[in-house]
């Protein structure tokens, strides 16, 4: 049986990354490296106001004093930050008024990725902000949303058109001094999405940002800011892919979410950056800071992530439960294969009374990969009646991979109830046998078991994403067993 499984595993690991094509489009690049002039140049290119430049420079100066973190359970190569291009944009007109003006190459690219920019042809009710390299290409359904008072646009536009909102909320959850990569992002971030849901509005469609790296040697630094006013609701999706290249590319993003009284924000990610080839060559280094704050009472933030891509993932979507009776959820499936490394998890900081958090993390590691869960549950003295439930399971496929769990529980309140449990195991041979017995071949059996294992998380994804994620899981792992 193991010979057969090895064969299947080999087949699976040789599966090509299907989003690995490049688009030949004229790209505007700035010189490599980072210094104050580059920061100023980026700001100038984006025609930003003075206060934005000040913010960037403050961040840049602070970044100079920082060192790359060494604590993750990752083999981090030395990254030469002077060897990265910090800004790349498809040339041509930076702003499009209608779809006809968009470069057909670009439309084609996004069509191939399954992200139609053409609203007419769009079946599902999803509004998309498509970001290629450093700029937002097109935001769909803007007018429909505007009728409800929802602002959904690229970050650069928001800086120009809604400076008060941006000024008020940017950096309020992830300050520019937060960590090495967040600070770098604050200095050089290029674009991203901005979303504001006014009071009492329930966003009628899923909002989505699609990130695409195209240019070589560039880093992508985007920033997303979501503000949900009192009694509002929004479901937000994020997807990402990159071409296959031999060199590693850097991606350092920030996502900030602010939920006011009774607001609910659902944030889902399917992260599928290029993971590198089967020998560990190339791939994206993904260093992302995502954090939400349940600022008002009874607010709710939920993070759902399916992490299948990137050579290195360093990502901890977190939530500060500041208001009373706030709720936060974190659902994660992290899959690593070949030489991928992931150190991912969450932080739940309980400040408000009766705040509740749930963490469900499913790690799957195969090949020569290392997959770690790292999470913090912190209950402050003020958080009477805080409740947390954490479950992190790891599954190992193959005897050369590793799965690790590093939970931190810091409890400073006697009325808190905190539970943590974790298991690590391989696919049960008895489960496979059971499926075989009922006529499923091993490959399908494993697909079934893996999907069942991850179901708890996949169920939390919006429908369109759940289908994609399920397929992705199947591509990444179907048939592999240790």
């Amino acid at each position, binding site marked *: 049986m193991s010979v057969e499984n090895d064969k299947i595993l080999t087949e699976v690991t040789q599966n090509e990354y299907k989003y690995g094509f490049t688009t030949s489009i004229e790209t505007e690049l700035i010189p490599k490296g980072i210094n104050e002039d580059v920061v100023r140049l980026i700001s100038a290119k984006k025609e930003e106001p003075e206060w934005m430049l000040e913010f960037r420079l403050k961040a840049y100066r602070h970044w100079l004093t920082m060192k790359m973190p060494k*604590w993750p*359970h990752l083999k981090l190569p030395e990254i030469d930050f002077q060897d990265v291009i910090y800004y790349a944009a498809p040339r041509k007109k930076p702003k499009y008024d209608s779809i006809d003006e968009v470069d057909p190459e670009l439309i084609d690219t996004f069509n191939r990725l399954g992200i139609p920019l053409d609203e007419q042809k769009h079946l599902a009710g999803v509004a998309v902000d498509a970001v290629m390299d450093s700029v937002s290409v097109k935001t769909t359904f803007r007018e429909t949303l505007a009728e409800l008072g929802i602002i959904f646009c690229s970050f650069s536009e928001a800086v120009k058109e809604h400076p008060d909102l941006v000024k008020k909320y940017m950096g309020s959850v992830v300050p520019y001094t937060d960590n090495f990569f967040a600070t770098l992002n604050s200095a050089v971030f290029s674009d991203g999405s901005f979303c504001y849901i006014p009071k009492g509005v329930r966003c009628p469609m899923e909002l989505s940002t699609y990130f695409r790296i195209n240019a070589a040697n560039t880093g992508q630094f985007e920033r997303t800011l979501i503000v949900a006013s009192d009694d509002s609701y929004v479901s937000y999706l994020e997807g990402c892919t990159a071409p296959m290249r031999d060199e590693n590319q850097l991606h350092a993003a920030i996502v900030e979410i602010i939920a006011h009284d009774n607001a609910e924000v659902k944030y889902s990610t399917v992260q599928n950056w290029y993971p590198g080839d089967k020998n560990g060559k190339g791939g994206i280094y993904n260093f992302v800071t995502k954090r939400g704050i349940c600022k008002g009472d009874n607010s709710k933030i939920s993070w759902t992530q399916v992490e299948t891509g990137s050579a290195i993932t360093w990502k901890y979507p977190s939530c500060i439960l500041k208001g009373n009776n706030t709720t936060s959820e974190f659902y994660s499936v992290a899959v690593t294969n070949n030489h991928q490394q992931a150190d991912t998890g969450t932080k739940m900081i309980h400040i408000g009374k009766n705040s509740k958090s749930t963490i469900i993390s499913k790690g799957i590691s195969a090949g020569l990969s290392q997959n770690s869960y790292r999470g913090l549950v912190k209950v402050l*003295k003020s958080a009477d009646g805080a409740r947390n439930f954490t479950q992190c399971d*790891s599954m*190992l*496929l*193959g*005897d*050369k*991979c*590793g*799965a*690790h*769990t*590093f*939970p*931190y*529980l*810091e*409890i*400073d*309140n*006697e*009325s*808190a*109830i*905190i*539970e*943590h*449990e*974790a*298991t*690590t*195991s*391989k696919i049960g041979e008895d489960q496979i046998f059971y499926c075989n017995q009922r006529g499923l071949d091993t490959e399908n059996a494993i697909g079934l078991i893996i999907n069942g294992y991850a179901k708890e998380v996949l169920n939390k994804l919006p429908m369109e994403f759940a289908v994609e994620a399920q397929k992705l899981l199947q591509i990444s792992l179907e048939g592999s067993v*240790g």
Partner: protein
Amino acid sequence: MTKLETLQHELLDLFTSNKETITGQDAPLLNEFRASAFDDFKRLGIPTKKHENYKYTNLESYLTGPEYSYELAPLNFEVNLDDLFHCDIPELATRIALVLNGFYYKHNRPVDLPEGVILCGLAEASREYPELIKKHYGKYAKAENDSLVALNTMFAQDGVFLYIPKNVVLDTPIQIINIAFSLMDLRITRRNLIIVEDSAQGSVLFCDHTLCGKSFITNSLTEIYVGENTNFDLTRLQNENGNSTQISNTFIHQEGNSNLTTNTLSLHGGLIRNNTYAKLNGENSYNNTYGLFLSDGNQHMSTFTNIHHAKPHCTSDQLVKGILNDTSTGAFNGKIYVDKGAIKTEAYQRNNNILLSKTAKMNTKPQLEIYNDDVKCSHGATIGQLDTNALFYIRSRGIVYEEARHLLMYAFANEVIGKIKLEALRERMIDMVDRRLRGELGACENCKIIHN
């Protein structure tokens, strides 16, 4: 310079200026390790809260305090420990050895041991049994990456040496009473070595006591080697005064088919930090690590474990429970580490804690590091308070609140106490924990312990 850095320099100076006294204690084999340990300690420094393993244990306020003296050679003050100390556990048939301030008590009554079994001071052993010391001393506790091990190795003079030869079954447990007694505040270094050869069996009970209200800082290190087909138990009872600080390192090396259980019961102390490192270095071996701690006042009790599965088919089980009251703080930092080749490993870890007061604080960090797919590993941690439904159930049967609460706490603690293999001790512990939970001091009466 921070307080800990100052302390580090003081300790280094103390060593340099008293090198002759320390090395002059007629324990040549122990001296061989001092120079490199000195360098390691100098390089590593005393761990601060920035050190990942000491994230939740702040040594600073405990290690730097009043002016501590250091006993560099056994004090010659004639105190008859037999008069001062009687273990009052009824029907606990043990062979008793006393250790005073880290030095094996000279006037220990000779005990009747099976042939070949050696029980003596470590310094004496290094003179009398150099080949055993050479083979095992410093082999399991590595100073190069742990500064407190380095510190111990630097100053280690004496402690207990126990040797159980091949095929010998030691049916009566050996009880080692570590006494801290001094007229001055004191730093104590204690170093024990236990060797259990193939197919041997034995059990050891450590009792840590302070016989006066002075402040003590104890750096205790025990190395345990268990050979193939062995069965060995180590129970540790920590009951020291509130001014005392104890850092206790246990390094265990297990060969194939061995079965080893450690059970650490921390009843009282200022700061207690128990580090247990076990390496399962042979197939089919079993390791059980149990612990119970009860803290109140502003005590700090911290348990650190690292169970390293190096060979296939081994099983390990960890269970640490804590009840915290007042402003006490607790920490659990446990790790299961499974090597690439260690297939069919089964490793479990559980940490349950009850917070009784608003101001008590518990930090826990149960970790798994697994480099192998053919394993069954799990860990769980809970922090909470007594189950209100259970409380209600008991009270609805006419039992008053305080008693109901006590019953539940007792039941919680009993899971660990129940694992004590020595029956007489178990009975006694039940009583001691019972009294401890009622807020009385669970002291052994005849110990004349002065708690505060």
